[in-house]
Structure formats: C-alpha cells, structure tokens
C-alpha cells in the first residue's frame, strides 16, 4: 500500500491507525516527521519520553499497546502549539488525546484522573474544595456559587450525560 515504506506488521499498523482515528486523531497518516511540533511542545521541553512527533511515528509503525504504561501523554498541556505550527494539518494534539482516550479506556491512567472524574460526576466540578463557601465570603461574595454544585437539577443533567457514555464501563462511580 505504501511503496518504499518498510511495514513491520501490516495488521498491527492497521489496528493502531484505526484506534487513533476512531478516537479523534484523523490526521495521523499525514505526518511527515518534520519535527515542527516537537520544536514548540512543552512536553518535549520538559523531556518526557514521548512527544507528539515520536508518538505519531510509533503509531504509524503499528505500535499501540507498547506505550500504554507511558504517562507522557497525560503531561500534554492541550496547549495546541503543535496544531498551530504543523505544516501538514496533522493536529498532533488530537492524536495525543486520542492515544490518551485509548489508554483511559484500558484503565491506564493515574489516580489523580479518577479523583477529578469523581468530582465532576458528584459535584459538577472537577476541581472541588469543601472550604469554598468561607473563602467566597471572605472576599465579599455570597457563599453559594451560581454553578452546578448549587443546582441539583443541573447536576442531574450532567450525571445523565455521563451515565449514557462508555465511561460507565470503567466502573469508576
């Protein structure tokens, strides 16, 4: 299919690309490994084992499971510098997140991600602190926020959306 390209294992390659495309990373085949994304990526500056260029290459070669325990993708800042700069409209950020989604649904994520999911489901807020009412009053605001945590019917809507999603298969809640 790709003349002149050495394909390690066609079946692995197809599965890796399909997995990423289905989860939002539809530009994966357009990458020419120019390295522009890596040159501007905070993950790369901070020296994580994976950066968008590397991850994309590994996926193109058919490696999917091999990196599942690598937490680099969870350090992606979703900053989109890579999307801005990529000359091939690969949208590398979307591939990093597509890989994350693959990891997440295989339960390869850290406990901190579980806590914020729980908070979102229970309170409507990923970041939550019990002391908020006091803090608000100190700066002269009413203790209650006008947000989901103060509106049970809003919370119900959010829970309905989450309950009707594949996330429920993970058994987090």
């Amino acid at each position, binding site marked *: 299919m790709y003349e002149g390209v050495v394909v390690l294992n066609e079946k692995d390659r197809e599965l890796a690309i399909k997995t990423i495309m289905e*989860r*939002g990373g539809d530009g994966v085949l357009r990458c020419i490994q120019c390295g522009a994304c890596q040159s501007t990526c*905070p*993950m790369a*500056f*901070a*020296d*994580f084992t994976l950066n968008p260029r590397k991850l994309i290459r590994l996926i193109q070669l058919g490696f999917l499971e091999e990196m599942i325990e690598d*937490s680099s993708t*969870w*350090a*992606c*800042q*979703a*900053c*989109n*510098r890579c*999307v*801005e700069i990529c000359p091939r409209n690969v949208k590398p*950020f979307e591939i990093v*997140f597509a890989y994350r*989604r693959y990891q*997440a*649904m295989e339960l390869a*994520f*850290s406990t*901190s*991600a579980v806590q*914020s*999911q729980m*908070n*979102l489901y229970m309170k*409507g*807020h*990923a*970041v*939550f*602190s019990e002391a*908020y009412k006091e*803090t*608000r009053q*100190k*700066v*002269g*605001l009413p203790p209650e*926020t*006008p*947000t*989901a945590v103060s*509106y049970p*019917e*809003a919370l119900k*809507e*959010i829970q309905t*959306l*989450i309950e*009707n*999603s*594949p*996330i429920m298969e993970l058994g987090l809640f």
Partner: protein
Amino acid sequence: MKTMGLFLGCNIPLKLPDIEQSFRKALPELGIDLVDLEGASCCPSWGTLPSFDLPTWLAVSARNITLAEAKDVDVVTGCNSCFGILAETKHIIEHDEEYRKAVQEKLALINREYKGTSQVYHVLHALYKFVGPEKINEKIKYTLKQLTIAIQVGCHALWPSKVMAIKEPNPFFPTILKELCEALEADVPHYSRIEACCGMGGMRSTNMEKSLGLLKEKLISIKEEIDADMIVVGCSSCYLQMDGGQKILRDRGEIDFEIPVFYYTQLLALCMGFDPKQVAAINEIPREEIIARIQSEERLKEKQEG
C-alpha cells in the same frame, strides 16, 4: 452596554473567588454587564471527559453553552482551560457534522439543543474588543507609571487560533495582554520565554518536578531579562502555578527572589480603586507592598495630569 454570560468554571469560584470579584467589580463599570449562567458545570477540564470520550466531552461543554444561548448572551470566561474547551467544542460542533449529530442526540436526553447562537470570549478578548485600551485608560484612578510587568497570557488564549473569535496577530508574540497592561500605563517589555508554558495543567499532576522545571526557567528569564515588579497573567491556572509554584521554588531555595502575581482583572480593579481585600486577597507570594504602592497618593491619575 454589552451583556455577557459569566462562565465561572471551577478554580475561580471555588479557589480564587477574588478573581471572580474582580470581574464583577471592574467589568460593569467598563460597560460589560454580567449575568450568571445558573447551573453551569466544569467546562469539563482536559483531564476529565476530554481524556476519556470525545462525544461526551462535547455534550457536557455544549450544555454549558446552551445556558448562554437561553439567555441570548455571549459567554465570557476568565479561566483559560474553560475558554479553550468551550471554544474548541464550538468549533468542532460547527465544523463536523458527525460530531454535531452525536452531540444533539446526547443533549436530547436532557431536553436541550445546541443552537450556535452564542459566541465564546476570553475575558481579555472581551475587554480588548468591547472596551479597548483607550477606554480602560480613561477609567483608571491609579496609574502604573514606571512599573514593569511581565505578561503571561496562558496557552489556551493563544492556540489554536482557528477556534477563536478574537485572534492575536501572531500568538507566539502575544500583544493583547501587553496592550491591556499598557493601558494601565505600565512598561511591558518582551522577554525570551514570553510564550513559554508555565508547566501547570496535566503536566503538573503527571510530573511535579518537570512542571516546576518549566516554571523555574520562565521565572529566571523574567527576573534576569526584565527584572519585573510583577507578573500579570490571563489564566487562573497560570496564576496558581506562577504564585503557588513560585512559593515552592522559593522555599526550596531554587530561586532567591519573589515576584508578586496578579490576574489581569485584579490589577485592573486595583487601578480602578477597588478594595484589595475583595479583588486581590488570595496569594502565596506577598502582594501587600506592591498593592500599597499601586493605590498610593502619588499614583493618582488626576494628580499626575495636574
């Protein structure tokens, strides 16, 4: 007068409500009336639904946008993650038929429909577009003459520019926050790490040391290159990192200086004369001294203008 729907998110109303107060005090006086979006949830942030399931992310975000649509207002938010998430959601739903269909199906479960009638603005973008530097300068009581500001815009207000209603001419050399600070009459010089990431977000929860490494490099660039009197951020997450992370580095002896940090609207509200106990009260790196200098007799604009 423009009316906008204030989307609060999580960090601002629950951890940094002094920033919320600064919006509520400063914006109406500048001609932007704020209405609450009752029942708004987490945007949802990058580490939650966006990391698990794309259509569910879009549906929860779209629900938040429908709250503004119901009130016939545009959304304004001060949290960069919220801004990035909501602007990205709007872009995807409006450009991809498949996802739009998936979102509408999910929203139907809660009797809602995404219409696309509300625009999403970052508070800096709203100030820049609907008020403008000139009018801001007219409204301030105290000026920041001869004070140096290091700006930190925050990633999601810069990239990807394709999802934003208001665009920087070049997001790698941001100018909107610079002009807004210059409207307070401060000096806002360039420094080499001006567009660099502060290290907050997913990186901080994944690897604290690497995250603080990026912060340290940025702070040293600010100190050595422009010796700023303060850092002014356009993102509540950057605020937590530049202030709280700076404290960690200072306590460890990894840096030997302290630079006070403000969210832009906090500084704006102080320059307009609002009470620091309400608009700038939650911090790790001390701000009392710089606040006293800002709200001092000799900085009164009318006096300077004679």
